[in-house]
Every structure is written in structure tokens, then in C-alpha cells.
């Protein structure tokens, strides 16, 4: 028996969300009194792979073949499922990233496993049961799912579990699973990745703005505040609908759901659909000139006032905080 964790790389590097998944999988393995095996697919250098042992991987399977250099959903799912069979994995853990969302269900079907997506806590394994809490109803609620299949596939919500360093040793070995040509039909034509900005789903800090900003030309101060904090930028639905900002920045019920450590909402009133996407943020700050804005009811800190006066002062305050640090 074992626990298997898939460690997705972004251009050869592992992000924090992957170390979270490894730390989570290690805790699951400890609960089940078994070892943790990681599987990496693609071109990742040995020193990067070696980092996985620090978070508890007892062994890392390295799949670094020409065919699988770039992500192909079907083929990657097949390889991960093969590794799970070979290692007799009882639990397969992935990060609930855009790629993880495409992989987990396919792996689940291949292994006849229950698929629990968007897990936010460790499983309850007392007395041989297997129950996992996940978010549901677009973050307005949580559902505890009991898996009754022998194998379970769990995808972990980014920023829901902490990174835990362990003093441990792990070895790296090559793993060559045969790949069916049928699994390699998708061809990547273009990849665009902004490397100079924090990506929203992974961000620990998010600065978001809404219609209160009056127009796209006023986003300079939002970007400046975000950049000083090392935060990602986000927006409300009316803003992306009006093309002031790209759809990829829209957080809320029909956009993306995020759970950063800090969410600063500027000029967003807090419609129920928007709150659904951000309510699992650890700390929420609301800046709005309307004291009756519903967002204040779910905020930890608030300022009632004009964003155009307040944000420049916040920028100065962050600059002086950084200067004194």
C-alpha cells in the first residue's frame, strides 16, 4: 500500500501549491501508516525533484520522456494511473489546479476510485472510514464526502493546507510507463504564461476592484498596490463583462473561486455571487464609500470612504512599511 502524489511542474519548477499537496499527501500517508510516493512528469531538474523529499516524499518517480515533455491530459492521466497500480496506491493526491481538474476524474475512472475534488481538510480515517471535507455550492457551504471505493482520488484546493517540512530522505527513480498513441492526440499550438505577475489561483494576497473604480483607466493604483504587496489582481463580474479587465481576473460564482490569506475588495458592493467566490479567504478587507454595502457584513476590516482618496494613502503606507522592514 502507498499514497501517490502527482507533482505538476510549471516550466520545470514546482509551485507552493505543489508542496502543499505533497505535505497533505504525507499527512494522509502517516494516517494510513504507509509511505508517500511522488510522480513527476515532464522535464524537471534533479535538484528540483530532490526538494520533494523535504516535504515527505519517500520516493519520486520521474517520467521525463520526449513524448510527455508537455502536458497532454489523457496521456498524463494514463501514466499516473499506471504508477498508482504499480505502487499499489490507496490514495492519489493532486493539486486542484487547472490541469489537476482535468486529470483527477480520468484517473478516478481508470482506478474505479471515488474522486473528491476541492478537498480542504485531511480525511477522517478513524475506524477504517474515509471522509473528506470539500467546498460545495460555490463556496457557500461544505460537503463531507465518504468514499467507499478501495482507491480514492483527492484534489486539494490551493492554499487550504500548509507546507510542512520534514527531515527525510527520498530517492528518485526513472519511471517509464508505455503511452498509447491514442492518448497523444491533443497538440499544443501555443502557450502564453505571464511570468512577471502572481497568478490569481495561487495567490496568497489578492487586490480586487469593482465598478466603484469607474473605468479601466483607473486601475493603475490597483496594480501598484498589488505589485507592492506581491499580490495578484482580481475584479468583479460587471468589470470583466464590460471588458475593463480580462475574464481570467473575474472572481465569483461564475468566475473563479479563490482562498487567499488576504482579499482586499475595493469599490465592490458584495453581491452574493461575488461573495461565493471569495468567502473562504482568511482575511477580508473592504473599502467602499457606501456604509450599507453588503460586503462589510462578511469583512474583517473595513474603511468607509472614497477609493480614490484611500488607495493612494495605502500605497504610501505599504511603501513605508517596506522601508522600515
Amino acid at each position: 500500500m502507498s499514497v501517490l502524489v502527482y507533482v505538476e511542474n510549471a516550466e520545470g519548477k514546482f509551485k507552493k501549491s505543489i508542496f502543499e499537496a505533497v505535505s497533505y499527501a504525507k499527512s494522509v500517508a502517516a494516517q494510513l501508516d504507509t509511505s508517500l510516493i511522488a510522480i513527476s512528469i515532464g522535464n524537471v531538474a534533479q535538484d528540483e525533484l530532490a526538494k520533494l523529499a523535504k516535504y515527505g516524499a519517500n520516493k519520486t518517480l520521474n517520467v521525463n520522456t520526449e513524448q510527455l515533455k508537455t502536458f497532454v491530459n489523457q496521456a498524463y492521466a494514463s501514466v499516473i494511473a499506471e504508477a498508482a497500480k504499480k505502487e499499489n496506491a490507496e490514495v492519489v493526491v493532486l493539486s486542484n489546479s487547472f490541469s489537476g481538474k482535468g486529470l483527477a476524474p480520468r484517473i478516478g475512472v481508470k482506478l474505479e476510485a471515488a474522486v473528491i475534488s476541492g478537498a480542504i481538510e485531511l480525511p477522517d480515517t478513524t475506524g477504517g472510514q474515509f471522509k473528506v471535507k470539500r467546498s460545495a455550492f460555490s463556496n457557500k457551504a461544505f460537503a463531507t464526502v465518504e468514499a467507499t471505493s478501495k482507491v480514492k482520488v483527492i484534489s486539494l484546493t490551493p492554499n487550504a493546507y500548509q507546507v510542512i517540512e520534514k527531515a527525510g530522505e527520498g530517492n528518485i527513480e526513472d519511471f517509464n510507463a508505455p503511452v498509447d498513441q491514442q492518448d497523444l492526440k491533443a497538440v499544443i499550438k501555443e502557450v502564453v504564461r505571464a511570468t512577471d505577475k502572481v497568478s490569481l489561483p495561487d495567490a496568497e494576497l489578492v487586490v480586487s476592484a469593482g465598478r466603484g473604480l469607474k473605468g479601466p483607466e483607473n486601475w493603475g493604483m490597483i496594480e501598484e498596490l498589488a505589485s507592492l504587496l506581491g499580490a495578484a489582481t482580481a475584479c468583479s463580474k460587471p468589470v470583466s463583462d464590460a471588458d475593463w479587465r480580462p475574464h481570467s481576473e473575474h472572481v465569483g460564482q461564475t468566475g473563479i473561486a479563490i482562498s487567499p490569506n488576504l482579499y482586499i475588495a475595493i469599490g465592490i458592493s458584495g453581491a452574493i455571487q461575488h461573495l461565493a467566490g471569495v468567502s473562504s479567504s482568511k482575511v477580508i478587507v473592504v473599502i467602499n464609500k457606501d456604509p450599507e454595502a453588503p460586503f462589510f457584513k462578511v469583512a474583517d476590516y473595513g474603511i468607509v470612504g472614497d477609493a480614490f482618496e484611500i488607495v493612494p494613502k495605502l500605497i504610501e503606507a505599504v511603501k513605508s512599511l517596506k522601508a522600515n522592514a
Partner: protein
Amino acid sequence: MKILVCISNVPDTTTKITFNNDNTSFNEGGVQYVLNPYDEIALSRAVELAESNSGTVTVINVGEASTEPTIRKALAVGATDAVRVNAAPRDAYFVAQQIANYAKDKAFDLILTGRESIDYNGAQVAAMLGELLHIPSVSIIKKLNIEGGNAVVEREIEGGKEVLSIPLPIVAGTAEGVAEWKIPNMRGIMSARTKPLNVVEPISVEQLAQIVKFDTPAPRGSVKLIDAAEPEKLIDLLHAEAKVI
């Protein structure tokens, strides 16, 4: 070109979510049900593609008779015909098995779902269908075009996008950007009443998991207001008290 769009019947986006039976079931009292917004985007794009490729759009729903108003709405938006698998949608695996069983011998060129349903948010049906039907799947796409026998899709990745070309047939889960939401016109609404809606019985599927309990998030403490004349105090609090910056 034959397109299948999988649709869910979900609580309206403004629904206040509560539970009953000792927090083991969703309280449906007073809840308005709608076509899942992401499925609606999938349907809108399917109707556009069918129009430009002289194709047909079939919508399929796994649900009991109470979902028929939602299915009629999909027909009003422009689907050609509809199928309802007569069963409560137990979970994503159950739904995917029912749809795969229906689709397996119908030679659909394209199968679309929404990226996820706004109630259970599993985002699992598209990829499960791909696996069950042994065809490629892309879970969250923001653009979809047909070029010859290929689907050209744009998929979101962290901090960017990836453009893929995949030979049909494929399954894809659609997100905002794929199409604008279509509002049915009067002609659509009238014709929807007479379009075919076939009811088929479900197959039996092994249960791998079930929801045993629901919770709602703990309410936050009351908001700490900072005077607008001294916004720098907010930064101090975030640093010294909340310790997030």
C-alpha cells in the same frame, strides 16, 4: 456536425443555501431552479457552431421530471432535441456513466458540459465522459472553434493560457469567454414546446462515494472599521494584528 450538450438543473445563483434532515440534505424549500450558467455558455456556443456547420444540438439532462422546465429553456435557446435520463443525479460518476451510455453509439462529434455545476462544483463530468468514451477531454476552455476535423480550444492555465488542436470527437467543459449567454426569443420559446424530449431509463452504476454531511461557513466576527482619515492604520493592522502582510 452532431453536438451533445450536458445540462444540469441547479439552484439560482442568488439562493441562500440551507440544509435539513440533520444537515444531510439540501433544503429545496422555496428554491428557484435554473439551467446551470456554465452549461448555458456551452449551449450557446453549441448553437452557434451548429448554425455555421449545419449541425444539430442535442441536450441531455440526468434528472427527474421536475427538471423539464430547464430542459425546455435549453430547447428555447436553440437545441434541436432533448433527452432526459430519468433518475436523480446522485453524483458526477453516476451522471457521467448515464451520459456515456447514451452517447456511446450516437457518433457525436463534440460533447460539451459547463466547466462545473454551481451546486456541487465537482468539475468532473467532462473528464469522466472522455475517459468512459475513450476520447480526449479538456476540462476548462475559454474559446472553442472548429477547423476542419479539429477542435481548436483555448484552455486556462495558472497565469496564462494554452491553445490546443485536437481531432474530433472531444469532450470539453466550457467557461466564460466561449460564448455570450443567449436569451431565448419568442419564436424559440414557442417552438421549444413541440421539440422532441425523449425520456430514457437509467443504467445501474456502482456507488463509490456519498455526501454524509453538509456545513455552512462559520460567520465572521463583526467588521473592524478604520477611520477613512487614517487609512495607514489598516496597513498596520494587517501587518501587526492579522499578520498577513
